[in-house]
């Protein structure tokens, strides 16, 4: 009988794998059922948003940057507007700042609801996906009522916001907050003690805090590994210092903690939205900005806390009506380049890779741009 021998082999996961929520290819090196190494191949969605922005005026950049991170398009609008306002030294009216915070936090909740639904769906549970999208629909209705769009808003503009909220917004928003808050125990009830969920979540995908910082990982993934670092508190922007909220943090750094941090962040965001609705002042919604906005020559890097970590824009102006350089930075980019570090040599199964990818909450347009 000939001697049996074993060898490592490689398989492609993607580019069209359903769990990557976009077009990402992971080249997995396998030893039997165990994953030895994973190498991400990206760029399938590269549209060169940065080059397109260099060829557009500031106002025209905002709808293009909506497509940069479409699940939280409000943040993309906001971070670019913030950079342009810093360059042009535009003072934003207080009502506009409140409206921006309300929209940003509602968008963060919507994004975390998508995370909750799709992660459970990747692991084979369809009900949470329906739950998540059902509650997200309430938020989408609020956005549609305000700016007419449900995904790419083009709402936050340089100097303020594009239009005021309709009168029925505030009562509808309070009702939505109440409904979402009342549904969160259902979410936890359906997943927190589910044995299939726990088997793929507890103790899988452990991230070391020091290593995560060195790899530029931020947002919920970093906070789940015990680093209490939230730009809303630690590098404050807009009017966040006025609000009372906690930074959600967990200590194990595994898939389960990343899920817990996001659920807690939904609670904190609901708290912020409700405080912002209480304090919403009257007044202008937009500073006077010329139609041909030309900030003086200069350069600035601004960063905000997005639902996927630090989102930043490095903006260079040469004093003309078009930016000289727009460099966008998204949390997913660093999370995805960090992924091989926590997969390599740990003997995970392919189903564990799906769970890790899902809890990193990587969204491909943010990586490829």
């Amino acid at each position, binding site marked *: 009988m000939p001697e049996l021998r074993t060898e490592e082999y490689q398989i492609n996961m993607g580019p069209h794998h359903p769990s990557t929520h976009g077009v990402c290819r992971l080249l997995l090196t396998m030893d039997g059922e165990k994953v030895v190494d994973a190498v991400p191949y990206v760029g399938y969605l590269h549209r060169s948003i940065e*080059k397109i922005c260099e060829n557009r005026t500031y106002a025209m950049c905002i709808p293009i940057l909506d497509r940069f991170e479409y699940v939280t398009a409000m943040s993309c609008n906001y971070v670019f507007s913030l950079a342009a306002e810093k360059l042009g030294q535009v003072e934003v009216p207080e009502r506009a700042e409140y409206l921006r915070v309300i929209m940003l936090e509602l968008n963060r909740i919507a994004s975390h609801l998508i995370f909750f639904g799709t992660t459970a769906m990747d692991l084979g549970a369809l009900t949470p996906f329906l739950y998540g999208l059902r509650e997200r629909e309430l938020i989408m209705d609020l956005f549609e009522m305000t700016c007419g769009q449900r995904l790419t808003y083009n709402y936050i503009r340089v100097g303020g916001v594009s239009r005021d909220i309709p009168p029925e917004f505030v009562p509808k928003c309070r009702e939505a907050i109440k409904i979402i808050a009342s549904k969160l125990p259902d979410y936890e009830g359906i997943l927190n003690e589910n044995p299939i969920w726990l088997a793929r979540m507890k103790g899988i995908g452990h991230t070391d805090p020091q290593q995560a910082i060195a790899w530029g990982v931020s947002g919920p993934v970093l906070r789940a590994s015990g680093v209490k670092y939230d730009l809303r508190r630690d590098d404050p922007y807009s009017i966040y210092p006025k609000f009372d909220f906690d930074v959600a943090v967990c200590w194990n750094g595994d898939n389960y903690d990343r899920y817990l941090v996001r659920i807690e962040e939904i609670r904190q965001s609901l708290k912020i939205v409700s405080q912002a609705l209480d304090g919403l002042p009257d007044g202008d919604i937009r500073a006077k900005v010329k139609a041909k906005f030309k900030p003086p020559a200069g350069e600035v890097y601004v960063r905000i806390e997005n639902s996927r970590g630090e989102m930043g824009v490095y903006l260079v102006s040469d004093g003309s009506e078009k930016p000289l350089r727009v*460099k966008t930075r998204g949390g997913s980019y660093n999370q995805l380049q960090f992924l091989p570090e926590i997969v390599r040599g740990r003997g995970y199964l392919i189903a564990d890779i799906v769970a890790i990818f899902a809890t990193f909450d990587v969204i491909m347009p943010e990586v490829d741009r």
Partner: protein
Amino acid sequence: MTQQELTAYILANYDGKLTLLDTGRAEPMFELKPDDLLEVTRRLRDDPQLKFDFLCNMGGVDTGQRLEVVYSIASTTKHLRMDFKVVLGYENPSIETITEIWPAANWYEREMYELYGIEVKNHPDMRPLLLPEDWNQGFPMRKNWDAPDFIRMPEL
């Protein structure tokens, strides 16, 4: 440490290797010589007063007259932030890798090479990132780049 104190501290302690640029804004922006890059970035990371442990962002810039590489760094414990840049010419631009200081630079440097043609020396893995593997149409983020289907926006 406030931003003014940070600027004063760096000007006093870094032997003139980081020179302050006048950008008229809150966060300081420094310029650095390409040869000092590794030494200064290591000191910035290990300095107990600063602890710049987080690379926020890095990327190339083509101003039309020269190429620049811009680094934005932050400290997660001291809550500081600063930017610095390295200025390069168009003739064989190249720069040392900083992946051993901040591993996060890995993909940023790969992206910078394929989009701007700024060579990164000693990089562990220099495959193309965003562009196709058989891309042969030059460095698309350069200002003088052109392609048959690339249409510039007319002047307003």
